[in-house]
């Protein structure tokens, strides 16, 4: 305890316990100025009986001795900048982070356990709700996994429609990332402009399946519905309009001194360490590793599309921003090609073991009625086996690992959550950075707690 506090304490006649060295607040005066010694003028405040009081002039102005003290700071789980119910406990030396201990699990719902009690098609609504910024992408990923397990191949038209979904989904996820990250760092305009584009995509999805956020748009062996008439015109309008909005937003940030100052050099991680930590998606590519599931382990005929895999050089927050922006542009390229090649034909496979018969057939034909009854009451049964089908979700490598024992419900449905593994590297990323940079680094990981806690 320094002399100041003793002075104040004795003057006000209160016990010394009421005042501790940590309760001093110093605020700069409204007018900037220097005193005779060239030090900035300040009005030291001392907590007294629950309210802050200014020290009287002429009193000694010793700084409390805090050099040797490390401070414990808790961020979250209810904090607007942790992007969900993430809690970080930080050990600070001054303003520098010495150690970071993340706590997760506040949103744990036991998705994987629930999946063991559901038929395959009944799990699809759960996939909406894990990474809820990427619902259509999760639906497609799950359907791909289940189709491998059933040993069926979807139709040409369905494949292309799913590519469209995957890329729209990537765009809306990255758009939310860019918008919220710019709010975290202090820019509000991109958030509004980008959310307008997100609305456009949600309008498209609503026109297709009736839902905006929780789409549940795929089925094992096909889709819930084919696209409605005129839907492609809406998509073409989006493809035409979105790059303009994106360029405007990126133009505001890319060479902005504040943006660069708050992102360049932060949270950098090298390629070897990024691979070793299991990072994936833009986090890994920003570090310079050109690993993209779409290119390296293709699905949905991605090898036939012409697109680039952007990689960064330093792996800092700024590189992750650049990589995600470029990915959105590449997604637009893929969308253009997909719209061009979309063939006519059936969207569902012709397999009564998996696909419900048409309603009029189910009520008029015996055979179809039996299929309908069996599919609804029992559910389709895959053969005994297991598979892990990874896809490139906006966050990284997302895979569904499914194990079947021949019954209509999986023995195990495992979600490989990319943001869970990406977030596990955060103690390494924030160490040695300032407290305010923790927010930027955490934002750059692009976490969705629904997926992390499941």
């Amino acid at each position, binding site marked *: 305890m320094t002399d100041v506090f003793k002075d104040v304490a004795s003057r006000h006649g209160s016990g010394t316990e009421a005042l501790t060295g940590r309760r001093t607040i110093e605020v700069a005066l409204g007018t900037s100025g220097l005193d005779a010694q060239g030090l900035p003028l300040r009005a030291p405040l001392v907590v007294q009986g629950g309210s802050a009081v200014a020290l009287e002039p002429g009193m000694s102005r010793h700084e409390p001795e805090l050099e040797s003290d490390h401070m414990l700071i808790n961020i979250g789980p209810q904090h607007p900048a942790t992007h969900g119910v993430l809690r970080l406990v930080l050990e600070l030396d001054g303003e520098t982070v010495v150690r970071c201990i993340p706590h997760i699990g506040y949103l744990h719902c036991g998705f994987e356990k629930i999946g063991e009690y559901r038929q395959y098609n009944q799990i699809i609504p759960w996939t909406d709700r894990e990474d809820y910024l990427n619902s259509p992408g999760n639906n497609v990923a799950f359907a791909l996994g289940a189709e491998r397990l059933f040993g069926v191949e979807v139709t040409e038209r369905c494949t292309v429609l799913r590519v469209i979904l995957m890329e729209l989904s990537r765009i809306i996820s990255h758009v939310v990332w860019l918008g919220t990250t710019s709010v975290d760092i202090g820019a509000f305009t991109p958030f509004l402009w980008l959310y307008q584009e997100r609305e456009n995509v949600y309008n498209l999805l609503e026109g297709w399946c009736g839902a905006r956020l929780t789409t549940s748009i795929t089925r094992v062996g096909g889709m819930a519905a084919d696209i409605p008439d005129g839907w492609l015109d809406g998509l073409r309008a989006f493809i035409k309009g979105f790059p303009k909005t994106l360029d405007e937003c990126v133009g505001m940030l890319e060479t902005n001194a504040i943006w660069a100052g708050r992102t360049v050099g932060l949270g950098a991680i090298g390629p070897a360490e990024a691979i070793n930590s299991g990072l994936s998606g833009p986090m890994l590519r920003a570090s310079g590793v050109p690993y993209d599931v779409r290119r*390296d382990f293709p699905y949905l005929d991605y090898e036939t599309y012409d697109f680039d895999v952007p990689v960064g050089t330093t792996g800092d927050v700024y590189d992750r921003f650049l990589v995600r922006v470029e990915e959105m542009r590449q997604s637009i390229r893929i969308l253009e090609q997909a719209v061009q090649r979309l063939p006519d034909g059936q969207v569902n496979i012709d397999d009564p073991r998996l696909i419900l018969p048409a309603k009029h057939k189910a009520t008029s034909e015996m055979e179809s009625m039996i299929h309908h009854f069996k599919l609804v009451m029992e559910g389709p049964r895959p053969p005994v*086996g297991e598979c892990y089908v990874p896809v490139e979700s906006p966050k990284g490598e997302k895979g569904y*690992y499914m194990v079947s024992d021949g019954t209509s419900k999986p*023995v195990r449905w495992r979600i490989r959550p990319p943001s869970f593994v990406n977030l596990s*590297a955060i103690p390494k990323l924030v160490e040695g950075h300032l407290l305010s940079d923790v927010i930027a680094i955490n934002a750059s990981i692009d976490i969705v707690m629904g997926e992390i806690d499941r």
Partner: protein
Amino acid sequence: MTDQVAGTALAPMTDAAGTVAPTTMRGVPHRGGAENPSAAALLAHFGAAIARVDVVWGETTVVVQAASLHDIVAWLAADPAERYEYLSDVTAVEYRDFDRPLEVVWHLRSLVHRRFLRLKVQLPKRGALVVPSVIDIYSGADWLERECFDMFGVRFEGHPDMRRILLWEGYREGHPLRKDFPLRGRFSRAEQLKQALAADPEARYSMEELSIAQAFESLPLDMRERLAHRDASGDAGRTGE
């Protein structure tokens, strides 16, 4: 070691020896089909430690003995012909048939050779559920192994921080993804509510965190007493059982 890995990981992956151009998997047979060449290499190298090699839906599964798992993973990660540098996932599977052993599953990926390999260790349920940790090979295994412990009760020997991760440390109902765990939990709703209301919010800081900056000493006296009492009575429930 790390720098060398970095340099080569950036080399164009298409030039890797023996790699075919990646294409979407089509018409994959249920059983059989092309086996990952790493399985044969493992058999040649570790022989007795390899229990079985399966190819299901085009994916190669190698069932290995728990004792040699760490050596096998280390070899796979380091051998220049294999280079499984990326750990995708660590998880476990328990079958509905009680007599089948619990399986711990590792999904490994070679970025350079574009290969995917699944390793499995079978653990009879009557024995101890312990497997070696691979955290010294892949730092990304940290949370994945903790989650596997949290959900299945499989201990990873060598992991420095084998705590629950998604559930809280005082969780006493067991490991939720085990088949003997009911969907609604072991405790009744009334009991769950009672425990939630009785939960000590201060327990949300672990003693390790409070020891940062001697934060414990600066807590109010009554809170310190409660925390000390909690520690003495062993109420933290570290294992959750």
